């Protein structure tokens, strides 16, 4: 239980821990690091901090983090484990924590299977841990959510984009930070409509995720006034008998289109589509212009600072899943700060409430959609080393919040908690 007086004390003397003095080095000479000068001791003894532990679960052998895919920098794949972002999240939280007397920390559990992770989260729950980040594929995420349904726990989905998780398979104890397939498709098709590149040839891969992406694009085309010219299957294969589906020029011939949308959640086929199409057309989707939650080259809204902090901490560039993990921690810390409590219910209420404003470094303040617990957010439209546009595009309007033009809106949701 947090004591009221911890928050009533806004005056915390941090002289000892936060101030550094330095002997004046002359910059005209060499750059010697400044010497630290001993600081006066704190004037008042600080009250002991309340610990707020968060959990993080992942699968040890998760094929989504295959190293070869990461090295190839395939845009739709993560660049590394999102847990790497939690170091930045906790470090950002520490400054706030010192002032409000809360010691934020995160514990990682990497399991061989979902049963191990369920056991770990149940043990955390006994300790009073209320907030967990989950980097899990959709089926395992649902198993975890169901196992914890009767506990005071909230799970942050940082890596699973499936629409059903926000729709018919939604769970009240899950908040989705990473965007859904629908949001990504909406962002991309808004851009295509904006540019008047409305005729879309869709190439669909064999995976379940590919089918979901196609469904999302078809819905988006109808919403924003684009036209799916045709959906053609592709296969990643060298078998000459399947060349109609593997040869990019063949699979994109005999049709009239403005762009080629490649629905390829694996990413390896899409990688070789740009400049291989029969007609000279932009490629979008899993290669070419790729919608994403984040990009390392994003220049506005303070993003370079976040990217640089992440790169220093993780030794690599920041991708969408990393951003989602960082944002989840930020959401919890903000809610603790503003609800003035570390107890589960007040923090959860603030998270799901109307006053939550998270700075996700994408411009608009982020908050949680009440109807499906998806965090509403701008989506970046990216090419290899740049962001070409940020959705929602100008001109796409909404009654209450333009961010809700991306994804499933309240009147249409299939989610019923």
């Amino acid at each position, binding site marked *: 239980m947090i004591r009221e007086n911890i928050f009533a004390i806004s005056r915390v003397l941090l002289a000892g821990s*936060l101030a550094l003095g330095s002997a004046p080095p002359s910059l005209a000479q060499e750059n010697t690091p400044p010497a630290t000068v001993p600081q006066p001791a704190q004037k008042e003894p600080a009250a002991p901090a309340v610990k707020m532990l968060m959990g993080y679960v992942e699968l040890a052998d998760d094929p989504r983090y295959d190293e070869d895919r990461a090295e190839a920098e395939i845009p739709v794949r993560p660049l590394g484990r999102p847990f790497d972002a939690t170091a930045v999240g906790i470090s*950002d939280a520490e400054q706030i924590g010192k002032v409000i007397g809360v010691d934020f920390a995160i514990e990682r559990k990497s399991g061989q299977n979902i049963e191990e992770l369920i056991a770990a989260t149940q043990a955390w729950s006994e300790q009073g841990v209320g907030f967990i980040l989950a980097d899990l594929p959709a089926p395992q995420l649902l198993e975890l959510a169901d196992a914890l349904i009767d506990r005071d726990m909230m799970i942050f989905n940082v890596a699973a984009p499936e629409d059903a998780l926000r729709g018919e398979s939604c769970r009240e104890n899950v908040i989705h930070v990473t965007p859904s397939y629908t949001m990504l498709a909406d962002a991309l098709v808004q851009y295509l409509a904006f540019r008047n590149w409305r005729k879309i040839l869709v190439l669909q891969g064999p995976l379940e995720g590919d089918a979901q992406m196609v469904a999302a694009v078809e819905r988006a085309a109808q919403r924003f006034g684009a036209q799916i010219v045709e959906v053609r299957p592709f296969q990643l294969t060298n078998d000459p008998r399947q060349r109609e589906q593997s040869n990019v020029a063949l699979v994109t011939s005999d049709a009239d289109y403005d762009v080629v949308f490649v629905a390829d959640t694996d990413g390896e086929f899409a990688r070789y589509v740009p400049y291989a199409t029969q007609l000279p057309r932009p490629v979008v989707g899993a290669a070419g212009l790729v919608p994403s939650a984040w990009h390392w080259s994003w220049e506005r809204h303070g993003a370079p600072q976040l990217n640089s902090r992440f790169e220093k901490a993780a030794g690599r560039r920041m991708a969408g899943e990393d951003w989602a993990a960082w944002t989840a921690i930020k959401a919890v810390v903000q809610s603790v700060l503003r609800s003035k409590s570390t107890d589960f219910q007040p923090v959860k209420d603030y998270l799901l409430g109307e006053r939550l*404003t998270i700075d996700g470094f994408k411009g608009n303040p982020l908050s949680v959609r009440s109807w499906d617990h998806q965090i509403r957010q701008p989506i970046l439209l990216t090419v290899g080393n740049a962001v070409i546009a940020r959705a929602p595009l100008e001109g796409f309007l909404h009654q209450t919040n333009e961010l809700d033009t991306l994804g499933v809106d309240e009147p249409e949701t299939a989610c019923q908690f």
Partner: protein
Amino acid sequence: MISKIRRYGCVALLLTTFGLTVPAFSAGTGLVFVSNEKTHNITVLDPKDYSIVKWIETSRRPRDMRFNNDNTLLYVACGDDDVIDVIDVATLEVVDHIPTGPSPEVFYFSPDDSLIYVSNEENSSLQIIDVAEKVIVGEISTGAEPEGVVVSDDGKTVYVTSEVADMVHVIDAETQTLTDNIIVGTRPRRFVLTPDGQELWVSDELSGEVSIIDRATNQVTHTLQFLPPGFRQVDVTPVGMEITKDGSTVYVTLGRANHIASVDAASKEIKEYVLVGSRAWGVALSPDENTMYVTNGLSDDVSIIDVPSMKVTQSIPVGRVPHTVRIDD
């Protein structure tokens, strides 16, 4: 603005220490200086007809600018080159550079101009630089992404925002130690001190508010919310502010809401909104306070407002992503 104590002899001594000849004293030319982040220069406008007098090439990514006490020199923080450029106002040339920590953004002088307090965006720190020696004489850790810096008139207290930690750090200038932290709104950016020294106003960009702090107690006493016509709460992103010399009115730029607001400082009431350009961040008043200049970062121009009628009379195109505007008064 705060009244300036002019110590000509001290300044002359400082300048000769730089190795410069003492420049002619610039008695308020009224020239308007606008820093342009992406074109790495400063646009100098003539206040009579707003013609462009000169483009001053600076180090890369010029942002905040400050005059010294007698307005003979203009200092510009150049974020991509980690340096503060020094411009001779009489000749409109860069005459010196002061090295800083990584990515200096906003800075403020001590009352006697001998020290610069500068926030280093990338390093989570406030650095204290001896201007004459061009040497860093102190560094104080802050929360992530410090930005706004202001020094009280008596030079005893320095305030700096941490954008990520949503707080204002209070620093004792003499001991160079952090003595307090004040939690404000989301993503606090800039400050304004009232001339009577009693209040500190802070713009909270992402919660769309201005927090007003009572300096005696370090408590937030008021929170102002803005809503200009045609915009939603989420679009309101206040950044730069300016206060009249008599402390009666505060002007607040509203960022993506493309307006500035005029606030009665005593009653805290919002008097009116004026539509300016795209992403208004910087604001400055002419010496007679009859003209206001607002920099619009995403329409690459400066809006010129006639204050008595509170109407925009002109928009002057400047460089790319104008950031700060300062007037030689």
